């Protein structure tokens, strides 16, 4: 771990590594930081909070109409009932994709993203090209992601400009009537919950 090394000698380190180590050391010496707390934060997002959370929400929405309705009414409460709460998921809204409507999510101003259900965002979501183009050319973006929409479908882009975080509920794939919730969750990709992908067909997971 970086904080195990002598922070006084940064000569062999790249600039960013040296910069983070210096800051972490200063803050730790001042009593403002407990390095073990950083370990715990990182471990949370590396092992516990990721797109698997959102996939479970989607699978339940596909199999339980009451839960789907709850999601439409109050996604924050419905998602919290599955145990997924907290930072960057304080105010959740679920938007449902169907044959006529395709929703996709962006944050043109920064990188807002529903951490509590999708974990930390990928680099492309935070990048200038996606943030710039998702609102102006969403169909071009979808084509680059390999998404083909049904004829006549309308695209609805949600720009996360406040603390509301959007979770796209992708359409349930054909031929999945016999699958249970766990098997359905395997079909739900991270991108399908941002709206830059579709749920996988059975057998493709």
């Amino acid at each position, binding site marked *: 771990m*970086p904080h195990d090394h002598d*922070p*006084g000698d*940064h000569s062999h380190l790249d600039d*960013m*590594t040296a910069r*983070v*180590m*210096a*800051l*972490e*050391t*200063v*803050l730790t010496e*001042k009593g*403002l*930081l*407990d390095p*073990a*707390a*950083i370990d*715990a*934060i*990182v471990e*949370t997002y590396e092992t516990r*909070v990721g797109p698997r959370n959102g996939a479970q929400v989607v699978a339940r929405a596909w199999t339980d109409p009451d839960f789907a309705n709850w999601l439409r009414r109050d996604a924050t409460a419905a998602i919290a009932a599955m145990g997924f*709460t*907290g*930072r*960057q998921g*304080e*105010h959740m809204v679920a938007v449902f994709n169907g044959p006529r409507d395709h929703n996709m999510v962006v944050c*043109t*101003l*920064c990188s807002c993203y529903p951490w*509590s259900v999708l974990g*930390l965002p*990928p*680099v*492309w979501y935070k*990048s*200038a*090209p*996606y*943030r*710039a*183009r998702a*609102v*102006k050319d969403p169909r071009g973006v979808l084509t*680059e992601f390999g998404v083909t929409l049904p004829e006549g479908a*309308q*695209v609805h*882009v*949600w*720009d*996360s*400009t*406040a*603390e*509301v975080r959007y979770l796209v509920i992708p359409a349930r794939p054909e031929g999945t009537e016999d699958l249970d919730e766990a098997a359905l969750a395997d079909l739900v990709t991270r991108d399908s919950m941002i709206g830059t992908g579709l749920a996988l067909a059975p057998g493709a997971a």
Partner: protein
Amino acid sequence: MNGPQDLGGRDGFGPIAPERDEPLFHAPWERRALGVTLAAGAHGAWSIDESRHARENRDPAQYHSLSYYALWLHALEDLLKTHGMVTQAELDRGHADAPAPLADRTLRPDQVAPMLARGGPADRDPGDSRPAFDVGDTVRTRNLQPRGHIRLPAYAREKSGRIDAVRGYHVFPDASARGDLDVAHWLYTVAFDAQILFGTEARAGDTIRIDAWEPYLDRL
């Protein structure tokens, strides 16, 4: 502010480049940068809006040349200096000169899970306040051009749309970025026809939605 962060509708940034099987972090220092930023924020010395403004309030060349977590780190250093928690001399030396205030609020490992689970809800008790707009009302966004923080993107200023949802009474980022945490306003989702925002190159029937606080909106 009309800063480099306001990217919606800008051209010239090239194609999106999704990475197959992208790792959560691309270098060990990114892990620490995330952790240090969240742990330092736990002191409560600044709001999410103030930290956003610290990331955005820099010259465009620097903003666009810094990687994501590098931007976070630069902003964090600025916030810590602004709030008197570290000095530039300490950062340069990589060691502390003196203890700091707020050390009693330092995040401990056993507090991490509750802190992350609690998050920081931005809604507030509206008291007697009632929303000025209802779902379905037609509104126009104001032509706001402040030097300070704002969450109304440039592409959606002075545009007409309709109220899609009333999201509750929320902390007002323009004030919160300045350290005033007591101001809150009604928050709405406003839907715009894509062609209103981006002309006839956009597809009729497509929509773009933003979340907008009441001071961003006028009734049409």
